[in-house]
Each structure stands twice: as C-alpha cells, then as structure tokens.
C-alpha cells in the first residue's frame, strides 16, 4: 500500500524464538520464519531463522554473526514482550556495531502463544506480527540514547524499618539521603511492637539502635512530621516538593528534656502510637526513644491554638524552644532516585460487626494487644482487661480478621498467623491464661516459623479450626454470664461450639495506606486493585517499579513481616547504589521534534503538552520542543494539524507501515477470496 513499491533498501534479519515450548508449543515457529523468509523478501528480509532460545548467549551470537556476515541493516526478533528483553536484543545488535534502535522486538509470547490455543490462528497471528515488525523496522533510524547525569541523592519516603534499612545502606555507602516521615518520629509500626516472632527478641532493643544511627548519620537528612507534596522530573533528576509541618518547637534550642509534655494540661487519646489504648499530651514525642528527640505541638488539640490561652509549655520550657508562630515550610529537594516505604494501615476491625469490636469492651485488636503487652505501654506490660486491673483467665485469639474474606480484603495478610502464635505465647507466659487460637489455616512458611508453631502447641495453647462466626456478650446460660462468648464451628469436629472467654484478640489484617492510590499517582507508579504498589516483575524485579528511578520496599508492595521488609529495604538500596555508581543514565530517545518549515505557529501543541516542553518563539512564530522536558508521549505529534511534529521512535511512517504489515496477510486473503 503505502511505501513499499521500490527495491528494498534495507537488509533485514528475522529471528523467531521458540522460548522452549512457551512459543513453539502453540505457534509453528518454523513455518513463521520460513514464511517471513519467502514472503517478506520484497521488504528486504534476507535471513529468517527460528531458534530455541533467542535470548540465550548463543541466540544473541547467532544474530551478531548474521549482522556481520549478511551485512544486516535491520533486525526483527519475534519473542517475548519488549518490556522483558528489548534491552537484551538491542545490546546484542550494539555488540555487532548495529545501532541498537535498528532492532525491533515483537511479542509472539505474551500476546500470542500464551493467550491462544488455536495453533493455526496463533501461527497466522505470529506471521502478521512479524510482518508488522518488518515493515516498521524499515523506517527505524539510528538513534543515540539521551544521557542524563544521575543526582547522587536519594529520597526515601517512610521511616519504618524498611525505610530505615534502605537509608542506612545508602548513607553508609557515602551518598546523601533524605528520609521523609509523616509522624514526629521515625520507627514506624515496629516501634510499637513488644516482641518479634519467631525469636521473641524485644522489638525496641533491635530497632532503636538503628534509629539512633539514622539520627546521627552525617549523610542522612531526616525530615520528620513532613509529607511529599509533588514530584517533578524523571529518573536521575527528580525535584521533590516536601511540606514540613510546623513543630512549634525550635529544634536548635530544644534539648528534649520533656518538661513541656509534663506540664501540658491537655490529655489526648493516642490513636497512633498507643493504638487508642493510652493517652499523650498535646505537646508530645510519640515514645521515649523517639528520633528525633524533639516534641511537636499538635495544634488541633493544643488549648492555645484552640482557645488562645494556656502556653504552659512555653512558660516552663527551660530553653525557650517553644515557638507558637512557626509556619509550615515548603521545601524542594533534588534527588536521582526514590524509595517508597510508606508501609501499611491496620484493617479497621469495627467493619466486622459480628466480632463486636468497638461495642464489646474486652475485644482488642492486635495493635492494641502489642501495646498492652509492651512494658513501655499504658499498662506497663500487664495483660489486663479494659478495666485496667483484671487479668484474663481465658483468651481467644481470632485469626484472619478482615483478611481472606471477600467482604473485606480478599488476600492473606501473611503476618497474622505468626503474630497470633506470638500472642498466644505472651499471654501464656505473662498470665497463664488458657489460650484459644481460632484459625482457618496456619501458615508458617519461613525459617524457624513452624518450629515456633510447634513450641506454642507444646506450651498448651488450644487450636480450633474454624473461622469465628460471632463474638457476643449475650449469655445463654449461667456459665456464659459476664463472659465474651466466641461462637464458632469446630470444623474438625463438625459441631458448633460456644467458648466463653474473658478477652478476645482480633488479628486484624494489613491494608494499603489510606490514600495509597493518590500517592501512586504522585510518584507516577501503578498500584493493584487492592491498593498495593505493583513491582516491575513479581519474581525477578520485586523492588523496582515500572517507573525508572522509583523503587518500593516493605509492606507498600504487599503484606510482609520484618525480615522481608528489611531485605527489600536493602535490596532497593543496592539497586539505587548501582545506578548512582553509573553516574549517568541513558534515557529512551523517544522525543518529539518540530519541523520549523511545516509549523504554522498555531500553538495547538503548546497546550497539549503536560510538561510545558513546547515553547513558542514569538519572533519566528514557530514552536519548539525542549528535549530535556519532553517525555515522548507523542500527543502533540498526533495533535499537530500541519503534521509538522514527528515522534522519534514512533513516527507516523513507522506506525502506518506496521499497520500495513499487520494487515498484509489479511489483504492477501481478501484478494484470494476475491479471486476465488
């Protein structure tokens, strides 16, 4: 149809991959490569081969050999998705001194063999796809990737254990880190825990040293009580706008002596750190070992901010560090890479009406219990009922609250089993109470976990297999009076049981942070329907995202325990250090360019660009694209009424020809049909 009448000017090699049986199992690869060799001659195909694994070194050498011997000027590989191996084959061409951008990888696996069963149809489709690639590649131009320097600094969002780990790894390697934390102190959920499974070492004992290291590290700039507002730029050169909330405390003068919160008359229920089980003051640090040590004044509850009087803290502060006039501070930092480690929220157990949390005083959540059992918690580590004194004689621990349930969250929260077993141990150890575990399945897959389960069984914890149906205070007989009754089917017995207990602990599941979807948008990454952020590859690239330069670590990617979060924090750091060492990064040279002769100066494109990359020269009355700002979306190319803008790598000619190629077969068929 369009541009293929004249003699082929290019020498093209076509390579069809078997990918073992992944492709060859459905697509007749031999037929495809033969067909390409015979029927695409006129477009310049001079060699066409199929090979077991094109991505293997042998496969790559095969291509390179042909490039040299057959003087190939273009290469088309029909294999997996470009998102997987485009780089691989481009590098192969590069190795043979063929410009990498003269190589086109078309997907006959993800989009053909893996999704179709009809072998004939799949083979036909493969031919079409190859033909498309061939007629497209003819119009490729040699390109050189845009090289941009990588800013050595890294932004880490979230000061939980994953963020802390990542920060220390990068900082220790000698590169600057900005650690942004929404709360007044770093530490995250781990700081709230009492013991950690399966080793039962004290959470604070292993966490606080790391927090202190972060606090003292010359390469780490801590931005606590702060939130990221906006992210501009791209990999290597992000400009991040951060909102530092006013602390109303001059950190330069504050010694963290604590007089202010002793004197503050305003008592506030601490929903964050004490999980609603204890109180803090209006001026406070979340917990004694907080890093940084400086308190903040929470202006929503502070009497001065609400009523205009009080200022007790100011009066008593020995160093005059209180400053009610402080304002939020907007700052911008330049970074090359970003790690998101914003963690998780606890499922709101109130959403399960039949478990009575919020109505029944002695139904607790797992986070409440962590505080209850924590010696630094509101009860000094005494496990007692909500009256503050009675020690429970029997405790029921309910697994899978809000998890594995289509009414709430359909996924397994991964940590609840082990956490519940830990609780069973702590209750047993501290109160000697009878402990029931109510579970659907016990999942203890990691190192030392199942041994821990065995140990808990040994300690005499009772296990009832069944999802608890309801928890009620409506007694049916004197034996149940004044107790919480757990009604459940013991599925191993096949009978309904009502078990009266004094205390119930709900192992509520993990949820993505509220507003994670907005966060994802801010950083230009995608998150799953659940709200967990999506990694680049579920197995092979778990900490990178589809957006260059943005990495994820810890529970932001999905529910996981402390060891896994630490591992991801370190992994993300390692990936970034690798990038920083390269000093500069190559960007896809996919950019728009305006042909001045054709530009009519209508300025339509100027408004189409979301990056203001197109500027209009009043003098020459033409528009021009700033390649540094252009992200290559191509909307302006499509929008230009004069067709004056062309998109490198995705030019009209390339795409129109690809359409021709894809439809080549169809047309032949239609011709046949007409003839017949």
């Amino acid at each position, binding site marked *: 149809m369009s541009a293929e009448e004249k003699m082929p000017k290019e020498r093209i090699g076509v390579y069809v991959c078997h990918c073992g049986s992944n492709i060859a199992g459905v697509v007749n690869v031999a037929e495809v490569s033969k067909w390409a060799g015979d029927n695409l001659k006129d477009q310049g195909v001079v060699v066409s081969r199929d090979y077991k694994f094109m991505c293997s070194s042998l496969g790559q050498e095969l291509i390179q050999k042909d490039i040299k011997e057959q003087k190939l000027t273009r290469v088309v590989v029909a294999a997996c998705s470009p998102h997987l191996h485009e780089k691989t084959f481009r590098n192969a061409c590069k190795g043979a001194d063929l410009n990498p951008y003269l190589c086109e990888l078309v997907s006959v696996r993800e989009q053909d063999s893996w999704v179709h069963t009809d072998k004939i149809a799949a083979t036909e489709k493969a031919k079409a796809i190859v033909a498309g690639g061939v007629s497209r590649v003819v119009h490729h131009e040699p390109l050189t990737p845009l090289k941009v320097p990588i800013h050595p600094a890294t932004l880490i969002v979230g000061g939980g254990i994953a963020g802390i780990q990542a920060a220390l790894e990068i900082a220790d390697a000698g590169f600057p880190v900005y650690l942004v934390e929404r709360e007044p102190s770093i530490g995250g959920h781990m700081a709230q825990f009492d013991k950690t499974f399966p080793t039962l070492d004290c959470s604070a004992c292993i966490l606080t040293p790391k927090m202190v290291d972060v606090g003292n590290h010359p390469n780490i700039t801590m931005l606590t009580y702060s939130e990221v507002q906006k992210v501009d730029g791209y990999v290597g050169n992000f400009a991040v706008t951060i909102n530092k909330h006013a602390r109303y405390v001059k950190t330069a003068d504050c010694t963290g002596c604590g007089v202010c919160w002793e004197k503050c008359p305003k008592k506030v229920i601490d929903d964050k750190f004490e999980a609603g089980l204890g109180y803090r003051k209006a001026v406070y640090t979340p917990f004694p070992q907080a890093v940084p040590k400086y308190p903040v004044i929470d202006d929503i509850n502070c009497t001065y901010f609400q009523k205009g009087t009080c200022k007790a803290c100011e009066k008593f502060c020995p160093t005059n560090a209180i400053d009610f006039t402080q304002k939020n501070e907007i700052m911008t930092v330049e970074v090359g890479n970003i790690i998101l480690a914003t963690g998780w929220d606890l499922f709101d157990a109130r959403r399960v009406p*039949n478990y009575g949390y919020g109505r029944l005083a002695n139904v607790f959540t797992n986070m409440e219990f962590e505080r209850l059992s924590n010696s630094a918690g509101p009860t000094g580590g005494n496990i007692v009922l909500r009256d503050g004194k009675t020690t429970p004689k029997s405790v029921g621990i309910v697994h899978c609250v809000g998890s594995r*349930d289509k009414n709430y969250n359909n996924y397994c929260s991964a940590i609840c089993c082990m956490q519940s077993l830990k609780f069973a141990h702590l209750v047993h150890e501290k109160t000697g109470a009878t402990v029931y575990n109510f579970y*659907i399945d016990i999942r203890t897959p990691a190192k030392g976990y199942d041994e821990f389960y065995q140990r808990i069984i040994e300690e005499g914890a009772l296990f009832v297999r*069944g*999802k*608890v149906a309801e928890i009620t205070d409506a007694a049916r007989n004197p034996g149940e009076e004044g107790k919480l009754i757990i009604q459940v089917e013991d*599925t191993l017995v*096949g009978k*309904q049981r009502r078990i009266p207990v004094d205390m119930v602990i709900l192992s509520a599941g993990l949820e993505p942070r509220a507003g994670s979807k907005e966060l994802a948008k801010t950083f230009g990454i995608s998150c799953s329907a659940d709200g967990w952020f999506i990694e680049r590859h579920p197995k092979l690239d778990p900490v990178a995202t589809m957006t260059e330069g943005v990495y994820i670590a810890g529970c932001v990617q999905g529910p996981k325990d402390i060891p896994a979060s630490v591992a991801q924090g370190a992994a993300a750091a390692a990936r970034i250090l690798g990038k920083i060492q390269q000093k500069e990064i190559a960007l896809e040279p996919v950019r728009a360019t305006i042909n001045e002769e054709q530009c009519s100066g209508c300025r339509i494109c100027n408004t189409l660009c979301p990056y203001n990359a197109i500027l209009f020269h009043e003098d020459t009355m033409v528009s021009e694209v700033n390649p540094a700002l252009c992200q290559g979306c191509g909307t302006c190319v499509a929008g230009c009424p004069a067709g004056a803008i062309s998109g490198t790598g995705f030019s009209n000619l390339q795409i129109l020809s690809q359409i021709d190629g894809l439809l080549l077969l169809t047309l032949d068929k239609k011709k046949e049909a007409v003839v017949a």
Partner: protein
Amino acid sequence: MSEEVIVNSPPSAGPVKHEDLALLNQVAKLAPGDSHLEMCIQCGTCGGSCPSASAMDHTPRAIFAMLRAGMRDEVLKSNTPWMCVSCYYCTVRCPQDIHITDIMYTLKNMSLKSKMVQDSTASDFSRTFIRYVENYGRSFEIGLAGIQNVTHLRLATRLPNMAPMALGMLTKKGMSPFPPKRIKGMDGLKKILKRAKEMEAA
C-alpha cells in the same frame, strides 16, 4: 477415581458413581444467580453462625464437603437444609460470598424430587402451607397450625398445650377460623403455577 469408596459412609452409598463427583456443580447450577458454591474453603463460618446448627445432623460446611465428595444420598437424606431458618447470617458472613441460604432451598428441592426426605415434618408443613396458597392465593396461619399438629401428633405431644394459643388467635387477634377469601385471579394463578411446575419438572 470412579471406583473410589467413601470411608465411613453406609454401604448403601457404595462406590462413588462418576457423575456424583460433579454433584457440587449440579447443585451450584440449580440455584438462581451465581451461588459461588464451588468456592467453599471449609472455614466453618456458616456452621458457626447457624442458629439451628445444634438441630442439624451435619453443619452446612460439612454438607458442602460431602457435595464435593459426591455423597449424594447422605446429603439428600440430611435434615440440615430442613432445619435452616433462613436467617441469612451465613450468607452475609461467608468470606467466599456463597449464597448458602439459597443453596439450602435448592437442596430441599432436590431431596423432595429424589424422595429421600427422612423426617417429613418440615416438608409437610411447607406442603400444607402451600396447599392453601395454591387454592386460595393466600395463606391461612391458624388452619395451618391446626393441621400441622394433627398430622404430626408426635410433634403435638412434644409441644406444651397449644390450645390456649389457638384460642387466643381466635379471640385476641380476632383471626377467622375459616379459610381466607379466594383471590379474584385464582384461575390465572393456577395456570401460572401449572406451567411453572411443568418447567420445574422438565
């Protein structure tokens, strides 16, 4: 697999017939709408929630397991569906969104069709109830209670004396001892039900 024998099942059950292994899906298909029955993870939420579980010879969960195992006779002979009070606790609590109450109705239908109902108390009550509806278009509580107690003396004896109540029904509530007035469109209704029954049988 067609020779598999269910352990602990009365010899009457015998080896599992092959089609029985599809029993679960058969049941699932019979319910209106998508019942998600195949999604059961045996968590026991239903059995735990059921107000009349104690009166059932198998919990609903167990019934679903038996359906999977193709134990047709045991399931259809079970009194479980007949003890269901349609409180829908199981339905709203089920983590797999299985329409359990509707499944129970389906099982009742099936056991009646296959004539495997063991204790006919419940089904007879339903029949009596419906006999009025099919003839008058309206139900008739008091006559109902009466007949139910006559046809099931065993039940009546289990009961404390019902007389004062029946009396109260007549006096206090001013209920009529006579059957309800026929609805005008009775013929039409009869035609509708006739065709419906034919379709059901088909």
